[in-house]
């Protein structure tokens, strides 16, 4: 393998990781608090889940394309790619936050309230500890999917491992495609295993 390629693989991998990491942190920062507050607002729940569902049904290449002309968040480059990836990751994280908290045994929640816990105490001491592995499962699913989807970011100048794949397609060069696909797959497996381990470790029962 030429030294030029291997050093490019390294730098593209870091670039890829950066985009995924920022997107995941933003998506978690939005969807976990949003999910928590939706557990207290039954009326808004369907509406919000519906929106997140619709976002997820937009084909990914199209979503990247749609965002380019949007002012402030759009344009060519990483920022647009990150916005698109955040929109994709919202649904699994939001849904798992809701399912995790609403899935806490009704008898447990009722006795927490009946023991005289405040709503905040019920949330932090009962609901979140019992839901954390479910929430993390959402983060894991979102992260693994995002690592794959992020390769498309190269189409709108977002860089990352997708650069090799698009270059390989246009030059019919399998080696180039693999230079992008293999590190992305390895990254997804490592993320899956690592987050899976954390999920089991934080599982309450």
């Amino acid at each position: 393998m030429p030294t030029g390629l291997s050093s490019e693989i390294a730098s593209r991998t870091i670039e890829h990781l950066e985009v995924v990491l920022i997107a995941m942190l933003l998506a978690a920062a939005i969807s976990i608090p949003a999910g928590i507050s939706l557990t207290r607002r039954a009326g808004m729940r369907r509406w919000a889940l519906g929106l997140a569902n619709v976002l997820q049904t937009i084909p990914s290449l199209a979503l990247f394309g749609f965002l380019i002309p949007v002012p402030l968040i759009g344009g060519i480059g990483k920022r647009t790619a990150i916005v698109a990836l955040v929109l994709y990751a919202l649904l699994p994280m939001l849904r798992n936050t809701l399912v995790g908290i609403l899935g806490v045994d009704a008898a447990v929640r009722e006795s927490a309230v009946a023991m005289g816990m405040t709503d905040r105490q019920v949330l932090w001491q009962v609901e979140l500890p019992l839901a954390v592995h479910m929430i993390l499962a959402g983060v894991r699913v979102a992260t693994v999917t995002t690592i794959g989807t992020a390769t498309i970011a190269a189409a709108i100048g977002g860089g990352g491992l997708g650069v090799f794949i698009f270059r390989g397609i246009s030059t019919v060069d399998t080696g180039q495609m693999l230079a992008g696909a293999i590190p992305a797959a390895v990254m997804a497996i490592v993320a899956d295993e690592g987050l899976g381990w954390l999920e089991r470790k934080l599982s309450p029962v």
Partner: protein
Amino acid sequence: MSAIVEFRGVGYRVPRLEILQDLNFTVEAGETLVLLGRSGSGKTTALRLVNRLLQPVAGTVLVEGKATTEWDAIRLRRRIGYVIQETGLFPHFTVAENVGLVPRLEGWPADRIGARVDEMLERMDLPPAEFGARYPRELSGGQRQRVGVARALAADPPVLLFDEPFGALDPVTRFDLQRQFLEWRRTFHKTSIFVTHDVREALMLGTRIGLMRGGRLEMLATPEDFAQTQNDEARAFLASLDWRREMDAHRPLE
């Protein structure tokens, strides 16, 4: 004697369904009032009005002379122990953490919480050294209910509410806990309201029995009077005890 809990013309309803109507009774200090009734008679709803898990639509529920709606809900609930059939123990808390919950919420110092937890576990026949560090899933059904009772009693609340606490236990374990309940009643002197659909349990544990039917209080009597009454609903409950007569009636003629 003084009224610790009082229902004054209490009604409760959800859309299109009347659950409780014009409920009037008092629970005196130190007594165990058993609310007996069939499924859907409103007995659990009545119980949940006491610690303001629900609020009355009509009338007033008074606890220690003050309407539950006037109480700060958190303060009220910490003065009322609550034991339910599914125990509601926190699965991610150890037995000791579960029992020490309300004292911790009340801000007791750690050493006092520890001492109180040990004392409560001892009194429930659960040696702290053996059970304190276990999780609820590592206990039998009867042990879990005992932890539930210990948790309800830990902060020494003047009032206790029981919602079919022994309903899910096998009959032998249930009888064992019913006997212990009488023992606890003698030693702790708590005012209790106990909901059940088991007439035998009502007769055994209640100082008075309130019979509920269709959201109303059908009658209120001591177990002795209850056993003698001609009230239809009470007779229907008492008849369920009489297995021997049914057996004799269905015995083939010799």
